[in-house]
């Protein structure tokens, strides 16, 4: 309870699902052999934290930012550039963290201060424009970022797959540097999510919700909404950069496609909406569903597409082609905003009731 900051899942099914997800993630190295399963599990951890940080903005303050991948990218690139430039040692890891996190927070602060001056309705558009400029910048400054190719790097000795920590003869499992890295990712993600849970359940988090409900009312009550929103933005940016660091460490690579592209932004949006906005727990569910689907559903679509083309059906092969999986996701997205605005978590908490979250009118 302490750990969850007094905000338990509040639904038996939800608790069960969360426990299963977390146990499965924790036990992945032992339960599901093979690199793919471990990759998927690590990605779920990273994205759960990233999406939770986005939920702080979208779900708790109601502001839509399209710059979240920018912060994620800053974290990824900071660690990648440091390890690439300074060699695979812990000093480089520390440098990446010490540079990446403040940079993300400062940029978030700058955006926040800037949007102070301008009409609130511009916020989403401004973040989109800034993020796209940043993306262009990152691909153009290739001496620093490696351009379109990105930066591959080596991890410090301890975290390499070749480093055997506990040999197979002891428990029947080999625990190597790769598995250690996985648990590092797992633990840091979990810590960040718990920290976010604490933030949203603090008095500060309740002010954020008051602002989301009615900004003018909150202002009238004497809250400095701008301060709160900017602070939330910085926090979210910090966690996003943290997730970016984990992502780069896991992949041993940072590049535009894995850490900056607009499609990651869309993925985040989808995950947060599917999981349930304004719940933090939704991030874990959304990330799990989405990434499992991304990794396993696509192959299913390939099979279906082939079957459809063999059956000579028109159009269907093209629509079911694995590359078109975003199409179905987009439709799912619209449908969930429309029919299912509280996401999985909202549904489970309301016992499948039809209470809509659109009470903002």
């Amino acid at each position, binding site marked *: 309870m302490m750990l969850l900051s007094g905000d338990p899942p509040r639904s038996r099914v939800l608790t069960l699902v969360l426990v299963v997800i977390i146990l499965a993630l924790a036990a992945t190295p032992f339960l599901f052999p093979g690199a793919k399963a471990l990759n998927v599990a690590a990605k779920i951890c990273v994205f759960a934290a990233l999406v939770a940080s986005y939920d702080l903005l979208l779900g708790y303050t109601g502001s839509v930012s399209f710059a979240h991948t920018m912060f994620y990218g800053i974290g990824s690139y900071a660690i990648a550039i440091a390890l690439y430039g300074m060699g695979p040692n812990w000093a480089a890891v520390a440098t990446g963290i010490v540079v990446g996190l403040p940079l993300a927070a400062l940029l978030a602060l700058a955006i926040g201060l800037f949007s102070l001056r301008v009409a609130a309705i511009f916020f989403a558009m401004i973040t989109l424009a800034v993020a796209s400029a940043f993306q262009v910048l990152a691909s153009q400054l290739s001496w620093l970022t490696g351009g379109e190719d990105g930066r591959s790097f080596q991890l410090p000795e301890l975290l390499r797959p070749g480093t055997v920590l506990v040999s197979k003869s002891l428990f029947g499992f080999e625990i190597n540097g790769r598995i250690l890295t996985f648990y590092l990712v797992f633990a840091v993600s979990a810590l960040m999510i718990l920290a976010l849970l604490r933030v949203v359940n603090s008095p500060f988090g309740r002010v954020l919700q008051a602002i989301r*409900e*009615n900004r003018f*009312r909150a202002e009238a009550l004497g809250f400095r909404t701008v301060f709160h929103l900017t602070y939330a933005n910085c926090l979210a940016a910090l966690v996003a950069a943290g997730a970016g660091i984990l992502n780069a460490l896991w992949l041993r690579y940072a590049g535009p496609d894995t850490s900056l592209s607009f499609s990651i932004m869309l993925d985040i949006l989808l995950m947060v909406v599917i999981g349930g906005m304004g719940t933090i727990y939704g991030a874990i569910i959304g990330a799990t569903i989405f990434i499992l689907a991304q990794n396993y559903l696509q192959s299913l679509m390939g099979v279906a597409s082939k079957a459809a083309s063999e059956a000579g059906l028109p159009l269907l092969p093209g629509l079911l082609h694995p590359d078109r999986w975003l199409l179905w996701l987009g439709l799912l997205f619209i449908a969930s905003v429309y029919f299912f605005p509280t996401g999985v978590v909202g549904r489970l908490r309301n016992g499948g009731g039809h209470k809509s979250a659109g*009470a*903002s*009118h």
Partner: protein
Amino acid sequence: MTDLLKLSGVHTHIGRYHILQGIDLAAPQGQVTMLLGRNGAGKTTTLRTIMGLWPASSGEITLGGERIESRATPDIAQRGVSYVPESMAVFSDLTVKENLVLAARDGPMDDKQLEWIFGFFPALRRFWLSRAGSLSGGQKQMLSIARAIIEPRKLLLIDEPTKGLAPAIVMALIECLKEIKRKGATILLVEQNFFAARELGDNVLVMDNGTIVHRGEMAALASDVPLQERLLGLSLEAHQ
């Protein structure tokens, strides 16, 4: 005397806030009904609810016997209701003329009606082709009222028209509203200026905390100073 407008048991929520908490009121045909009350009592919300700008969450609103509480704002307006909001809401990017062109939705403006309006508010003629945004506050108020009466309407909802006006203009405004009443319109008027209220009102309703706390004849309230003080606070006499 039939009631043109009747509200019974009207509740209005804005977001999660319960603002109107069961309003019963009637505006008798051809009379001026004053709606008084402290700041934040819910007067503006009442007018906006009648106009359909905030949806009533429960209760009944009838206009000439017809239920209107679930109708859209344009439908309500087309049934002969015009609204002068507290903020005046003139279209500042449009000229005075263009503001009135839009207000005359049934066709071209009637010249006689226009002359009649110019009689009360000569400034409108003078600034006919100026942007409404460049008018002074009082002139905007005149334009806002002119918009409401450029075509004959059954019911006028007017929110604090004298706010910020010079005494001379207030007098002209009072004359104008009396004249509108003589022409047969029904008026529901929110007013903080007790002098204006006394001059114009036939009936009076006093609101507090989203309910009606007093109803009666204006004359009775005007002559009962202790009642005024109890209902409206001490500030009102000072308002004159």
